[in-house]
């Protein structure tokens, strides 16, 4: 793939830079550089973007039905790297909401349209998360700030750069307090810029603030090791994983990285080496739903459970034990397993309570996991916010001790528990400046609002983990009048020049020396820019020794919580794929059904089935949690007295998409001694109200059908087709009157490893971005009309209080005996000679018989006109949002059926490439969007006609089966049996 990676830096000489500007100008001038025109400029064509090579403006002859004259406007000067109609890929990095991911940006005719994983990244290894996939949409968000504003009025950057430093200067002179509030900064160059700013304005206090913080871990590691940092974890090296409420596959620290590591060990063919995963938690997380064993505890009991676990292990290993209440939860089987795999185990905890984390540190230390599965030397930097500093700042702010605030890409008004008070305080400040990408609560409270560029528009660098560097490069000229915050800060320091040069300068001085292979900086820089990443070769170091005294002080604070503090415990969490609320205005993200509950567009009070009966509530009934009224969702696997509610909803100031979606539960966060705790006690009361929830799946049992086939590892090691015994029988029963279908060259197939799939939903959004899948809004989702081509079915079995969970991605199975094909009267769907089940939108008249006759129900109908329709005011209703559309894929009109095409546009593209290069296709060359970005490597695509291909091997695998194969539909999609690895005995 290397060949396609280009970097703008290749055009380094000045004349070419000029060209670049010119190109961007041409590409963007017409519609985009004038922010007002974006709202008013209306195109008459439903998919005006499906143009190639030149921009086209349709102009219908006034009031007559003549063919509209179309214009073809070529580039004035075509930039060398842009071939109209061809895609370029640029390596870049994603870092938003504390999540890091190395990415490739697919740019078509000058606009980024898709994010892919960067396989060169040693951290994320080509995986992405749903949030990363959705981030490209935020680039084209109408709610973005388009101009610098001062008290609501447009001002120029020149004025900004004059006025603000002046005021800052005044405040600094008067010994006033200036606070720079940012989210975690992982960019080394940015840090340097901030240092310069601090030097320029004496008394400028820099605070990093994370909406969902891991401050507890920083503090615990400070206590244990004297290093306030988050270690790096190696789930791939752990045979036994015990997680206490850490949703490491969904939202915890670095989920893409962890999913890659985790899934690599979820291979049953590793036999005994396959990892075993215990999850001890109070609510059903995505990670918990993937665990081999899941133990349900109260979140308030976590400390006791942890200390008991510590004591058990200490007893066995001869360590110090501490007095503590006996926990009612029996974890002896975990203890046994942990002791059996010393140095190959990993205990993690999601709590923000440093005491808990200290115990976890002690356990890991006893088990010898430091240096093996945990690395405390090379630490993770994605969460650096310090709760106590932040709460001190809030206290100061509320007491009027702060004079000026520079808030960069943070939103405490929304996501800090005392948000309203903070808002009032900010409004009273002498100077308040917000740097923000799009409409948000804090910015609206500030005097100055300075638009930030999207990461796809800006330069940057990152160091998410010590020694792992990566670059962010712009893939489009800024759409709006925004400037990178670093450039603005430098301007305030009296320096001019663009940020790219600053980064280059920094890298030349600080990163370049970290390697020895290259001697010439520019060529090295170009390589790094092409690859996107640079890893410093680390020298192995001795892990720090744990300070045991830290534990002793901690244990005294671990006590049972008395029952008097309320009826129920409320746990607030980040929803997988939705994040902390910064992306709430992203329609893709909002419409993605939550991986566990399968609810989209809202958050809800997740209540255990038993509690629901006790309260007499059902789904969609409302309950009052303290003062907050929330709809109920009955979540199997929830601790009986724990109610979980997701953060990140209920934005009060935002774009149109986020309006009215869900409820803000940040106020539930407790600030205890300056630390934010994500649990609270509350009362619960049934209300006589209902609230509609957009559920995409309402039946949760497999009804005893062999939909997800499973076995346990022990059986599997004895018998290769364990759990999949019926496959052979069904194969034998495949008798047909007709000849087996034959395909001359290729037969495309897809294999899905149910053991690796975590159900994270990244593929859903990747597919949505690749295939222009429409967003339809809450009401229509609730009507069960979601358009996603790949859905993830989630089933529960056994005990509803702690069920076994199954995730199964289902897309068009491309059956060779497809029931849908037979019944279409107009030949809108039939088989290709490459085994694809074809769907021709322009032939479809919409009888929907194919939908009815599809046993997998993967066909989607365009119930309404979803593009250019006021009633569906999402991205394809405005010309800015339409920029994200993939020009290779038709935007479907009302009344036609659509479905997964196995990314036929990618197949065709690669076939053409092979033809042009006069060669055959290579296995693995074609990657559908779902496969390319799967962080778990659960999806494999390939040619079934090629006996050597990976897919052919997988189809021969004894675990392989087809969905409802007894119907003899001969699907081209295979599933690999899920093999669980529960503890023995």
């Amino acid at each position, binding site marked *: 793939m290397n060949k396609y990676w280009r970097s703008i830096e290749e055009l380094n000489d000045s004349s070419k830079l000029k060209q670049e500007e010119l190109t961007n100008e041409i590409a963007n001038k017409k519609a985009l550089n004038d922010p007002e025109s974006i709202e008013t400029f209306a195109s008459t064509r439903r998919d005006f973007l499906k143009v190639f090579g030149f921009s086209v403006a349709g102009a219908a002859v006034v009031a007559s039905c003549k063919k509209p004259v179309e214009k073809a406007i070529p580039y004035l000067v075509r930039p060398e790297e842009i071939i109209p109609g061809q895609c370029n890929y640029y390596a870049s990095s994603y870092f938003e909401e504390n999540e890091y991911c190395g990415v490739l940006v697919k740019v078509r005719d000058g606009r980024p349209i898709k994010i892919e994983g960067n396989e060169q990244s040693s951290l994320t290894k080509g995986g992405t998360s749903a949030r990363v996939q959705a981030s490209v949409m935020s680039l084209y968000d109408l709610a973005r700030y388009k101009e610098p504003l001062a008290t609501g009025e447009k001002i120029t950057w020149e004025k900004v750069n004059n006025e603000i430093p002046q005021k800052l200067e005044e405040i600094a002179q008067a010994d006033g307090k200036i606070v720079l509030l940012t989210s975690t900064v992982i960019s080394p160059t940015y840090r340097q810029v901030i240092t310069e700013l601090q030097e320029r304005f004496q008394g400028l206090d820099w605070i990093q603030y994370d909406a969902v913080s891991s401050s507890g871990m920083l503090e615990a590691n400070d206590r244990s090791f004297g290093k306030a940092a988050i270690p790096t974890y190696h789930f791939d090296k752990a045979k036994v994983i015990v997680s206490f409420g850490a949703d490491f596959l969904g939202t915890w620290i670095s989920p893409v990285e962890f999913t890659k590591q985790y899934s690599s060990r979820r291979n049953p063919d590793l036999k005994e080496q396959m990892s075993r995963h215990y999850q001890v938690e109070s609510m059903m997380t995505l990670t918990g739903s993937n665990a081999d064993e899941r133990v349900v505890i109260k979140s308030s009991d976590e400390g006791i459970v942890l200390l008991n676990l510590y004591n058990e292990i200490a007893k066995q290993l001869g360590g110090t034990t501490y007095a503590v209440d006996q926990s009612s939860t029996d974890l002896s089987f975990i203890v046994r397993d942990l002791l059996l795999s010393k140095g190959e185990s990993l205990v993690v905890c999601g709590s923000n309570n440093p005491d808990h984390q200290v115990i976890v540190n002690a356990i890991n230390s006893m088990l010898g996991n430091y240096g093996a599965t945990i690395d405390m030397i090379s630490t993770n930097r994605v969460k650096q916010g310090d709760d106590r500093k932040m709460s001190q700042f809030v206290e100061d702010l509320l007491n009027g001790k702060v004079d000026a605030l520079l808030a960069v890409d943070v939103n405490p008004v929304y996501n800090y528990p005392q948000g309203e008070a903070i808002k009032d305080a900010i409004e009273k400040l002498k100077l308040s400046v917000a740097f923000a990408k799009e409409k948000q609560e804090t910015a609206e409270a500030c005097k100055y609002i300075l638009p930030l560029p999207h990461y796809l528009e800006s330069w940057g660098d990152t160091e998410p983990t010590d020694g792992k560097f990566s670059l962010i490069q712009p893939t489009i000229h800024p759409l709006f009048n925004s400037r990178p915050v670093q450039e603005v800060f430098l301007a305030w320091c009296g320096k001019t020049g663009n940020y790219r040069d600053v980064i280059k300068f920094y890298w030349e001085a600080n990163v370049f020396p970290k390697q020895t292979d290259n001697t010439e900086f520019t060529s090295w820089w170009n390589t790094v820019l092409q690859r996107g990443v640079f890893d410093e070769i680390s020298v192995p170091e001795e892990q720090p020794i744990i300070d045991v005294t830290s534990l002793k002080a901690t244990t005294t604070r671990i006590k049972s919580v008395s029952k008097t503090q309320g009826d129920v415990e409320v746990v607030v969490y980040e929803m997988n794929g939705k994040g902390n609320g910064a992306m709430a205005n992203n329609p893709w993200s909002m419409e993605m059904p939550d991986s566990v509950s399968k609810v989209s567009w809202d958050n809800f009070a997740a209540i255990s089935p038993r509690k629901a009966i006790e309260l007499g509530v059902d789904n969609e009934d409302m309950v009052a949690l303290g003062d907050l009224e929330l709809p109920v969702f009955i979540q199997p696997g929830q601790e009986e007295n724990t109610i979980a509610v997701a953060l990140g909803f209920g934005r009060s100031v935002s774009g149109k998409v986020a309006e009215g979606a869900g409820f803000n539960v940040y106020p539930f966060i407790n600030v205890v001694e300056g630390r934010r705790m994500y649990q609270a006690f509350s009362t619960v009361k049934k209300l006589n109200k209902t609230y509609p929830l957009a559920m995409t799946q309402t039946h949760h049992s497999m009804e005893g059908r062999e939909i997800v086939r499973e076995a346990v590892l022990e059986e599997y090691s004895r018998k290769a087709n364990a759990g999949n015994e019926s496959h052979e029988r069904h194969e034998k029963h495949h008798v047909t009157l007709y000849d087996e279908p034959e395909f001359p060259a290729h037969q495309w197939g897809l294999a899905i490893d149910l053991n690796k799939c975590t159900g994270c939903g990244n593929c859903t959004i990747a597919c949505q971005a690749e295939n222009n899948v429409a967003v339809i809004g809450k009401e*229509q989702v609730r009507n069960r009309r979601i358009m996603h081509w790949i859905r993830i079915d989630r089933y529960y079995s056994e005990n509803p209080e702690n069920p076994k969970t199954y995730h199964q991605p289902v897309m068009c199975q491309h059956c060779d005996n497809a029931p849908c094909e037979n019944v*279409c*009267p*107009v030949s809108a769907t039939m088989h290709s000679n490459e085994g694809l089940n074809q769907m021709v939108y322009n032939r479809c008249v919409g009888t*929907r*018989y194919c939908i009815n006759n599809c046993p997998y129900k993967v066909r989607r109908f365009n119930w309404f006109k979803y593009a250019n329709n006021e009633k569906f005011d999402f991205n394809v209703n405005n010309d800015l949002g339409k920029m994200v559309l993939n020009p290779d894929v038709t935007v479907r*009109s009302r009344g036609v059926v659509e479905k997964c095409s196995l990314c036929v546009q990618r197949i065709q593209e690669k076939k053409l490439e092979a033809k042009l290069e006069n060669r055959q296709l290579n296995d693995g060359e074609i990657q559908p969007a779902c496969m390319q970005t799967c962080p778990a490597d659960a999806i494999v695509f390939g040619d079934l006609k090629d006996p050597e291909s990976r897919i052919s091997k997988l189809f021969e695998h004894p675990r392989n089966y087809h969905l409802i194969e007894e119907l003899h539909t001969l699907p081209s999609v295979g599933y690999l049996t899920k093999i669980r690895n529960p503890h023995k005995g």
Partner: protein
Amino acid sequence: MYNTEFRGKLIEGNKSLGQISQDIVRPIDAKTPRWWFISMGISLVMLGLGLYAKYITVTEGIGSWGLNNSVGWGWAIINFVWWIGIGHAGTAFSIFLLILRQKWRTSINRAAEAMTVVAVMCAGLFPLLHMGRVWNFFFVLPYPNTRGPLWVNFNSPLFWDFVAITAYLLISASFWYFGMVPDFATIRDTTKSKIKKAVYGFFAFGWTGSSKEWLRYEALAFILGGIAAVLVVSVHSIVSTDFAVSVVPGWHTTIFPPYFVVGAIFSGFAMVLTLVTMIRKLYKMNDFITDSHVDAVTRVLIFVSLIMGTAYFTEVFIAWYSASEYEYYMFFKNRVFGEYAFQFWAMVICNAFIPQLFWWKKIRSNITAVFIISLFINLGMWFERFNIVVTTLAKDFLPAAWAGYSPSYIEILLFIGTLGLFGAGVLMFFRYIPMIAIHEVKSVAKYDKPSHERKHRNHEE
């Protein structure tokens, strides 16, 4: 072979031929009664509501209905099958009874055929409207085109269905129309009104009643009767393939073709009964539609109802006997005892049990009771179609994709609209078209004459 003694008089009142003409044509010449205007008004209001629903459907999309990703067909298809079933009565009456030499059909077949045409029109609306892109409807036609040419899929039951419905509508309409030609001529020659003379004269196509015309007319009736008899069986069999050809549990059954045909005859006869009891009442046609006519239809209904009951039982039995877990779930956990038990039992009770009341002579001869039971059968048949269409789609193979369905008000209005269309159509029929086939009634009137007056000969037709 034909025994009037057994059946009783075909026409009461010992009427002369002239009286027959007069009696039947009277509603056309007479002043329109007030109830006609009232019911026409109601029908038109309903039709208007339906038009509104059609407007919304076409401009906004099928999304205005209550369907979803799993349940792709709902009320529209239920109503389509229901109307088509009702539309079966006309041909069934005319053709089957013609073939069986049942003279008593003559008083009823015109009404039945009219009902067929209107009902098939109502039915035909739904497959059109339920298309996502109705403006591309012509894609269904296999016509030469500039696309390659690209033809249609002859394997698709929907294409079969399209051909069958079109054929059925055209054939039953022409059958009905040509049956009326001599009657239009009668009106033309008896009416006093000049306008009516002109209009009916036009529609009579220049009919005079000469022996040459009658000769070919008889031949035409013979041919049409013969081939349309095949149609009676084929149309609903083909409609049933819309379901039977699929793979979905509850649809994928071989019993469907006969089951649908019988069901159609059942609902058609029930609707005929509903209509003729109304005609009798409203137009005092007791002399033509006698108690014995009603009696004959009810007897047929008992028989058909037993077949229906057997079919229901067979379906459920096979669901268990086949040992297919999907079929088993569909029938036992979804229909008989599950979420849709109400619809299932409504169907069974209305169709299999209630008509058994006709075993009692008292009920058979009580016109009000007959009317009410006929309505129950119509309702039951609607539930049967609901049972088939919705319950299957709502819960098929993958439980994750199971979804409920409830109609939107647009769908309900569409149905009301077709009821309005049917009402209006039938009322127009009452008002402007001889309700009873005059020439056919005349031809059988002779058999009612006292036998000494009939010195005849050969009673064969």
